[in-house]
């Protein structure tokens, strides 16, 4: 059932625990701000996961210093690139979620999504 590498991969383990927490928050919280926080926890967990994946014991960041170009010298650059892209995406998405929240709050003066839908029903819009 449980594989051999659980404790070697403790970094990944932490990452997926964070991911689960963020996922559940985003899915199940009622408060919009908490949902957004959950979203950011989730994304950050993914970056942690990627960083752990890129790491190789005893090697340095992939920036060529004084012309050393052996594979043994540097860690894997791909995950770092993926993290960069992921960060930008999550920034944009957070901005959108926040602006949606602002609009809803301006109108309904609440952050509780259920309450908002209740009021919508009452409005019968």
């Amino acid at each position, binding site marked *: 059932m449980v*594989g051999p590498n659980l404790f070697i991969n403790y970094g990944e383990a932490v990452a*997926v625990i964070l*991911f689960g927490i*963020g*996922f559940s928050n*985003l*899915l199940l919280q009622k408060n*919009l701000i908490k*949902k957004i926080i959950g*979203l950011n926890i*989730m*994304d950050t*967990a*993914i970056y942690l*996961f*990627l960083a752990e*994946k890129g790491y190789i014991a005893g090697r340095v960041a992939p920036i060529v210093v004084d012309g050393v170009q052996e594979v043994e010298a540097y860690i894997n650059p*791909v*995950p770092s690139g*993926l993290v960069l*892209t*992921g960060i930008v*995406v999550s920034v*944009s*998405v957070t901005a*959108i*979620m926040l602006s*949606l*929240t602002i*609009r*809803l709050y301006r*109108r*309904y003066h609440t952050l509780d*999504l259920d309450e*908002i*839908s209740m*009021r*919508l029903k009452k*409005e019968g*819009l």
Partner: protein
Amino acid sequence: MNFVQNFPFFSIILSMFSGIVSSVLPARAAKWLNTILISVVGAMSAVLLVYLMGTGESYVYWMGHFPAPWGNEIRAGVLEAGMALFFCVIMLLSMTGGRKKLLGEVEYSKHNLYYILVNLLLSSLLALVYTNDLFTAYVFVEINTISACGLIMIRQNGRTIEAAVRYMIMSLLGSGLFLISLCMLYDLTGHLLMSNIKESVAVLVSHHQYSVPLMTTIGLMCAGLAIKSALFPFHSWLPDAYGYSTVSSAAMLSSLVSKGYIFLLIKIFYRVIGFEIIAESKVINVLFVFGLLGMIFGSLSAIRENDIRRMISFSSVAQIGYIYMGFGLGTESGMTASIFHILSHAATKSLLFIAAIGLTDVSKGSRQIVDLTGAGYRNKIAGFAFTVGSLSMVGVPMFSGFVSKLLFAEASIGHTYKMLPAVIVLAISTILNAIYFMKTVIRIYVPERRKDCEVITIKNEKEYAVTLVCFIVLNVMLGMLSQPIVQWIHTGLSMFG
């Protein structure tokens, strides 16, 4: 290298570029740019399709100076080209059909922003269709999501914004799952390009390495895309999003956005993991079950609905269920049926949305089915179009829906132990469809002379009428000339493998 082979790249980059340009253009110019762009991309896809039919083999296209495992790639086959063409046609028709409502419902100063969204949506759809690289797929999935969110809430009232929030939440969950499963897959295979991943996955499976994480990864990926394409338990956002956004948005959302994700899922099945491995994994059984549930519950909630547009949206839930049911069969024919249903549902559902708008407009804007009494006489073309769409949904011969149901049944009959549930649920959901669509059709043809509603004739709504006629023709074509399309799907799938 043949010049035609550049067309996929051209169409993606053109739609992105016109999106960027639209940001500084006034609304009129943006509108024209958008129309021209869609037609040009459609034309290019058509040419590409013809070319590929000629050569009969797919090809990969470097995005940059570097070969396969190092640089990005896009890949074009018959299926991709055809899909791109189809998406362009649907998008063009949806835009023209909803333009009048758009002017009414969206503040004029934000129209060019709307066209930016549409252009980037097109680009993301094309990229999802053509890409050969999972991470590119992820980036463009995000673009697709954001532009879809923009399309939902461009008409700004509380409903749409709430719907947009719900949509964003669901699809962010989906992309989160997709991204982490992507990372795990990268960790297992060390590649991001689909073809290389497929090779290494085949090696892993043959050596029985990493079988547990491989399966969970596949499962998470399917779950993510299923959530994003509103498979049954995750459809809570759908009715509001489709039901209250402006009509061309609704048409595009229902017929293009979710279809983009589904097509990506098909690509993942064939090009990333390998169809045999998928077919014998447990994942598709889950998809099968949820598809069946969606077929039933979507139709049930559509029956309970009194608001015509929400009703149509709920029927979308059922149709998505059909598609996943086809996946769940795990056979070539099931896949074919699902792809055909993607086409037929896209054609029919956008037709229904646009026709419904025409009907509500002549009923003092009320969307309650009761108030639509006699709307079929006040707006003849819309009434007729709605009837055609409903018949196609119900699966009456001569229309596209019938053929897809036929294909589904053919596929499921081939199966040993999924045959009975599939066929029975098909029967039940067909009859449920018949109930709510026919109810509506009869309602709009119940004669009632309402003096207070204006009457729309074809004269004063040329664009609208032309759109609907095109849609009807498209539907009947899919229904009658289904064989070449099925052949095309077969060749496309064989090119995938």
